[in-house]
């Protein structure tokens, strides 16, 4: 890679934060009073030490002791982004994604290492930064535009497009405080969408609002990407990441864990440390549950009995829940829920096997399987939550586990699915194959 092709070079970057140490709280009135008198000195030390890390060995992020009040948000992260590349950053909560964004946006400096950026950067960590309630729509466009790094003449030349995109022509000279929240967001996003920096850094918080607005955001970003701008995109939404980015970086616990093609990294992330996302089991001592019942395993399988995370859209898929009843005399209600990539709860399914419904169960292992028929779910990734309720003698929850297994519904485009002959993008949460009649 020639050096003049590099847009962003992140070199050995670490970021340290000081989090509050748990403070001793007195439980007597006199004690509280004494604490109060002593607090100015303590507070001064506390607030002064917030950014002072002279007591920490910043060269060795690994030397972390348990009771320390510091936290390494990023540990020796390095990567390069080429000009024109669209790169996604994914990871679990607390993996360091937001910190990385803040470093790249110059909001906070790295504790160690350096970042070199070639080109003009705009970072969008939220829409509408700098908006003022008392200013009119027109005034806020200029305010927000310049806050985002545009020059006045750039805002001038794009002003009509911005207003047109937002659809607020009639309210241009009305103070923003009289806008509906939807209008405000549209105007704010519209300003952001008309930025033309060489490098764009975007947070997923942008994808708030209704589905139509999210789609508009995504389309616009894809547009910008196709125009050859460099984009760095942080997200939780795997579909958006795979759609937008060629390359994805997976952060895990402050470190760069994987860096590669979007498909490869996203599927590795979804699998986690398991071989496949379609099977998960717990040893007895780690099993979620209570002293009444506990979860042993959850599996995704096909009618042929195959345990797989790739499901043909035309075929039924079974969610198999294995659990152990530890105490006799309880009536249970096993259930699972399907959640799609947008976080939408697609359905909740409750075990209704007539042989067991309403009857107390003896201790032992049970397997409940719920079958989702073929030609019902749309394509995409579904993750499974599972819950075990006790209905009698008292209603209580024995366990509730999120994202235990996940599977991908795939259409092989053979023409006999609900798609028929259509091979383009096809929205919808479900995709039942309907019976059609046409008369003439």
């Amino acid at each position, binding site marked *: 890679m020639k050096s003049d*092709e590099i847009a962003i070079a992140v070199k050995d970057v670490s970021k340290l934060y000081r989090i509050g140490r748990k403070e001793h709280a007195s439980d007597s009135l006199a004690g509280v009073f004494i604490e109060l008198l002593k607090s100015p000195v303590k507070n001064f030390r506390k*607030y002064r030490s917030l950014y002072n890390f002279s007591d920490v060995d910043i060269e060795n992020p690994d030397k972390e002791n348990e009771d320390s009040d510091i936290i390494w948000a990023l540990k020796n992260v390095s990567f390069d982004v080429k000009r024109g590349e669209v790169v996604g950053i994914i990871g679990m909560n607390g993996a360091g994604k937001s910190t990385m964004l*803040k470093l790249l946006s110059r*909001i906070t400096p790295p504790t160690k*290492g350096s970042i070199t*950026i070639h080109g003009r950067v705009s970072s969008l*960590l939220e829409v509408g930064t700098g908006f003022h309630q008392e200013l009119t729509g027109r005034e806020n466009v200029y305010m927000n535009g310049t806050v985002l790094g545009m020059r006045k003449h750039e805002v001038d030349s794009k002003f009509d497009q911005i207003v047109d995109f937002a659809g607020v022509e009639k309210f241009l000279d009305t103070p923003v405080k009289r806008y509906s929240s939807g209008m405000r967001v549209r105007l704010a996003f519209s300003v952001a969408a008309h930025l033309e920096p060489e490098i764009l850094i975007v947070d997923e918080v942008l994808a708030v609002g209704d589905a139509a607005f999210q789609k508009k955001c995504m389309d616009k970003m894809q547009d910008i990407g196709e125009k050859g701008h460099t984009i760095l995109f942080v997200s939780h939404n795997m579909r958006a990441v795979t759609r937008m980015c060629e390359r994805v970086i997976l952060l895990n616990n402050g470190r760069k864990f994987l860096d590669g093609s979007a498909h490869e990294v996203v599927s590795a992330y979804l699998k986690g440390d398991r071989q496949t996302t379609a099977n998960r089991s717990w040893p007895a001592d780690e099993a979620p549950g209570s002293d009444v019942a506990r979860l042993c395993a959850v599996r995704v399988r096909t009618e042929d009995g195959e345990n797989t995370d790739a499901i043909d859209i035309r075929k039924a898929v079974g969610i198999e829940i294995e659990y152990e009843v530890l105490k006799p005399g309880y009536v249970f209600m096993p259930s699972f829920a399907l959640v799609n990539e947008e976080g939408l709860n697609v359905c909740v399914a409750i075990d209704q096997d007539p042989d067991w419904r309403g009857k107390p169960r003896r201790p032992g292992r049970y397997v409940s399987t719920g079958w989702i028929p073929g030609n019902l779910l749309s394509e995409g990734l579904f993750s499974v939550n599972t819950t075990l309720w006790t209905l009698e003698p008292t209603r209580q929850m024995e366990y509730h586990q999120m994202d235990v297994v996940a599977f991908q519904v795939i259409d092989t485009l053979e023409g006999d699915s609900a798609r028929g002959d259509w091979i383009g993008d096809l929205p919808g949460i479900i995709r039942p194959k309907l019976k059609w009649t046409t008369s003439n």
Partner: protein
Amino acid sequence: MTIDPDKLPVTVIEGSRSWQLINFAELKAYRDLAYFLVWRDITVMYAQTILGVAWAIIQPLVQIALFSIIFGKIAKIPTGDIPYVLFATVAIIPWTYISTSMMQSSQSLVANQHMLGKIYFPRLLFPMTPIIAQLLNFGISIILLVAIMIYYQVTPTWNLAYLPIFILMMMLIPAGGGLWLSALAIRYRDVKFAMQYVIQMLMYTAPIIYSASSIPEQYRIFYSLNPIVGVIEGFRASLLGADIPWLYVAPGMVTAILLFVTGAIYFKRMERVFADVI
């Protein structure tokens, strides 16, 4: 899109600090934003008020009336041969500017802390915005000053030529104070509570309601280390045509410059971690 790699600006983000106290190139790149920040301050200053900019006259007017009655008529503070109203007016107008802009500048970072965590632009713009925006009020209150001077038939002398020096000095004080206090306030919110006493103390230690000449001669050099003394005595002299009291002005000028330079150093040292200490 064609990009010429040689023309791209290069930004290096590092943990260490750079030596440059004020990055003028960067300020230049953000000059439009600076303009809009000032303009925003001015636009929203009197938003949803009935009297609007008239407040820029009413505020000092009420203070002048109050001071003239209490200190002029009742306490009968000696002011030489200058009528008390005139004596107070030339002091209250720069003082109002100094106190309001210092107050706003010191709170500028805390008031905009949301922005600090979301976007980067030169942090210096925050405390400097009120310093410029408040000049509007100052300019309007000059009308009041001119009216009172006409009423008392004061003819301006060549000393008026020195006024710009004192206006600059008047701006330097809240600028330096604002740099210090805004950076301190983001770390220690105590500043907010202390500010009203600081402002009050500054007012009584400056020759606003009394004349600097009532300070015993041997203490004058220490007294005039307070730069506000120099500004107010300077305003009086250049507007009312007395000799410019350089002995009061010079020490204050040194303090004002020192306040600004140390303020800029402290602000520079702290600005990178603002987002982490909010």
